[in-house]
């Protein structure tokens, strides 16, 4: 028979390892409807049953998207059976979820994981006793050592086949009489099998259940009042207390703990140093610097492995492009085809795929930090600093990585648990000046500021300021960021990384990136190539006569208040920057008719100085640093934000804020250096400052409360 089996359990209890052990290579990753949470499905080895990996959760409350997804799946999709994986070294808290799952009435088996660690600590667990007290089969396993897996598979198939539902666990008599009152009130309104689960949730005042059965909670108000009076507490507290008391009783009966080492475990000793009051932050900075030097660094002291590998692949793509171009010429291939191949496909996709080696090395570092349990400590150490901006302590890592390249930076935001922090971080990363923007910064600094390092410094400070601004503003936009999760976080014990898990996560992310490059990035590159190689008569022309140049003619009016003057070239350059930011320089080289242009564009410095002036140049730089990033980064953002609607919104916000800030920069700096600033720029500057001030200081700038109130009164 083929069954649908769900796998549920707490975060950090070895769920991913068990899922991998059960399903091997047969996994599909999709996502749960409406949320940015991975949904993994795989075939259980040696059977025809399908295993659905539910998100890691601590409880069946309806407050986090993970919990709602799990709850809806169990209730609506009715899996044939449930594997509840439980960390045997942390039984009490893990069993809290187990008791709620038992109430849901789905046939289930408890997989008691990490039994090898229990044994080595000297503790004894009476597995049969535990099974008897919980009323469900309990199978001791070790997912990491792959022991007990066959027994688990046999048992779950048997339970799914016999549809044997767990025996409910009874609490005190007044508890049970309140539950039966609630069950009566809910009869017919919720699925019969899970009625006990719903009844208890109704007592707790669970919003979701109260909504599902309007009036039901008021109907049993007298029963609830009596119940609350007896314990002198609110119903939700009594339910949680009763559950934990029951667990303490069961654990006390079936677990014999060996005496512990006075010094604590190895993990405790490591933690004492790593999150130490004085050493915590220096260690954090040290680890970040180490990652930077392994994956990104490329300057005076040499080239890091990451930068070397990516440089090599980029050169290879460039050489490959030249070879193909040469071959096309020799064989008289039509110029449009050779242009499409060399400039459109190889140039565009190569610019993106070149970053792959660097990303793999970077992800390797990050996944290892995640695996050993350090990431949770990063959040612990840095939380204080970041929370004011609507970001999590973990946002630091994506932002740091973003200084190298925005693509892995955006993808690194995946390690942030809170959906709200994750989304805000993913859309903020590309404000940091990435490696491809450095030549642009150098060009502007060289052309107008005598190569001053202050331009570089300005770019970094600007990036950080806009990240903070975005965090503060987006936190207020509930539709985009959702409700922030309260920072109450488990700090799992440190353990050595598991090779298979590390390899698999790195591969998954790299593969996702390659897929993006082969689809959306490929198409976008071809589109830009087409726009700048053809005119409206579909004749192949130089970029100066192309469709893109025509667009630039129109767009230049938009950019005039930014001090870019009557020059369409700059808007065209900004658009080609979408393929890769360093393209800006090459494009301007072509447009200003320079034969051969160097990396930092020395040849056009004079033209820039003449056309833009200091303030215009600074606003040009500002806009290009902040506006929509390259297609590769937009693709990565789409992967994290999941919908094109959210991605489009994020890109719009980036362009919007870039425009706002650039106008202000031009007007203010232009006045300081005595450059001519038009009235329109001044007016827009004041308007923009007002908009930003409003977004930052208004409590609810997006009028969300009013919206929901209106809906209610209607």
């Amino acid at each position, binding site marked *: 028979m083929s069954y649908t089996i769900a796998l549920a359990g707490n975060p950090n209890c070895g769920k991913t390892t068990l899922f991998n052990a059960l399903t091997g290579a047969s996994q599909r990753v999709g996502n749960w409807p409406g949320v940015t949470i991975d949904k993994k499905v795989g075939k259980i080895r040696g059977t025809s049953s399908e295993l659905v990996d539910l998100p890691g959760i*601590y*409880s069946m*409350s309806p*407050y986090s998207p993970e919990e709602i997804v799990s709850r809806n799946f169990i209730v609506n999709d009715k899996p044939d059976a449930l594997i509840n994986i439980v960390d045997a070294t*942390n*039984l*009490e*808290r893990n069993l*809290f979820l187990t008791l709620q799952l038992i109430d849901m009435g789905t046939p289930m088996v408890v997989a008691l994981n990490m039994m090898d660690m229990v044994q080595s600590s000297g503790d004894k667990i009476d597995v049969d006793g535990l099974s008897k007290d919980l009323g469900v089969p309990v199978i001791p396993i070790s997912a990491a050592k792959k022991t007990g897996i066959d027994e688990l598979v046999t048992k779950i198939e048997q339970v799914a086949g016999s549809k044997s539902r767990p025996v409910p666990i009874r609490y005190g008599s007044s508890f049970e009489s309140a539950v039966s009152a609630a069950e009566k009130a809910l009869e017919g309104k919720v699925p019969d099998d899970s009625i006990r689960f719903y009844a208890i949730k109704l007592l707790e005042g669970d919003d979701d259940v109260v909504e599902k059965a309007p009036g039901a909670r008021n109907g049993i108000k007298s029963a609830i009042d009596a119940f609350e009076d007896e314990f002198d*507490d*609110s119903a*939700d*507290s009594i339910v*949680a*207390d009763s559950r*934990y*008391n029951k667990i303490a009783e069961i654990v006390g009966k079936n677990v014999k703990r060996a005496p512990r080492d006075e010094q604590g475990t190895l993990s405790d000793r490591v*933690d004492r140093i790593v*999150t*130490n*009051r*004085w050493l*915590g*932050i220096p260690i954090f900075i040290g680890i970040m610097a180490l990652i930077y030097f392994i994956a990104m660094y490329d300057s005076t002291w040499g080239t890091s492995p990451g930068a070397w590998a990516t440089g090599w692949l980029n050169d290879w793509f460039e050489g490959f492009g030249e070879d193909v171009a040469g071959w096309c010429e020799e064989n008289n291939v039509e110029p449009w085809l050779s242009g499409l191949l060399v400039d459109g496909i190889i140039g565009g996709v190569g610019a993106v795929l070149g970053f792959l080696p660097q990303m793999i090395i970077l992800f390797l570092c990050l996944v290892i930090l995640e695996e050993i349990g350090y990431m*949770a400590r990063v*959040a*612990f*150490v*840095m*939380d*204080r*600093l970041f*929370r004011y901006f609507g970001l999590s302590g973990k946002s630091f890592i994506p932002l740091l990585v973003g200084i190298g390249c925005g693509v892995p930076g955006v993808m690194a935001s995946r390690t942030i648990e809170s959906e709200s922090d994750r989304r805000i971080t993913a859309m903020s990363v590309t404000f940091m000046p990435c490696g491809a923007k450095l030549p642009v910064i150098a060009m502007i600094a060289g052309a107008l500021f005598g190569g001053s390092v202050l331009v570089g410094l300005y770019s970094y400070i600007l990036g950080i300021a806009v990240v903070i601004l975005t965090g503060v503003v987006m936190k207020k936009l509930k539709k985009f960021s959702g*409700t922030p999760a*309260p*920072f*109450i*976080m*488990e*700090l*799992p*014990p440190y353990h050595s990384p598991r090779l298979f898990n590390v390899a698999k996560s790195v591969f998954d992310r790299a593969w996702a990136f390659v897929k993006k490059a082969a689809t959306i990035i490929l198409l976008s590159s071809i589109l830009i190539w087409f726009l700048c190689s053809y005119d409206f008569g579909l004749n192949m022309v130089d970029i100066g006569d192309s469709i893109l140049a025509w667009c630039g003619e129109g767009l230049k009016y938009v950019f005039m208040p930014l001090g870019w003057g009557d020059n369409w070239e700059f808007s065209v350059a900004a658009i080609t920057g979408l393929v890769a930011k360093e393209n800006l320089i090459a494009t301007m080289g072509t447009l200003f008719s320079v034969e051969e242009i160097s990396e930092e564009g020395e040849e056009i410095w004079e033209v820039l100085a003449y056309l833009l002036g200091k303030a215009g140049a600074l606003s040009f730089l500002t806009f290009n640093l902040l506006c929509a990033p390259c297609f590769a980064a937009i693709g990565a953002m789409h992967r994290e934000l999941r919908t094109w609607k959210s991605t489009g919104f994020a890109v719009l916000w980036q362009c919007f804020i870039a425009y706002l800030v650039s106008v202000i920069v031009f007007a203010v700096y232009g006045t300081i250096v005595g450059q001519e600033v038009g009235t329109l720029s001044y007016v827009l500057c004041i308007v923009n400052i007002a908009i930003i001030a409003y977004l930052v200081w208004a409590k609810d700038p997006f009028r969300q409360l009013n919206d929901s109130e209106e809906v209610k009164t209607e």
Partner: protein
Amino acid sequence: MMTLKEASIGSTVKVVKIHGEGAVKRHIMDMGITKGCSIFVRKVAPLGDPVEITVRGYELSLRKEYAEMVEVE
């Protein structure tokens, strides 16, 4: 009334009551901080917030604003 926020580092306290309501209260209880359980206050983060505690045999960190909702003795 003393709260978990005021408990000194290195001390062991007993939970009397969880104040507040909604998602945060729910989450605090889900993580095993319930009436009568004992909590060991391990340390505070380098920047003074959040705190790290041992509850029900595992390590948990929470911001002081939430620790304030837990009444202890």
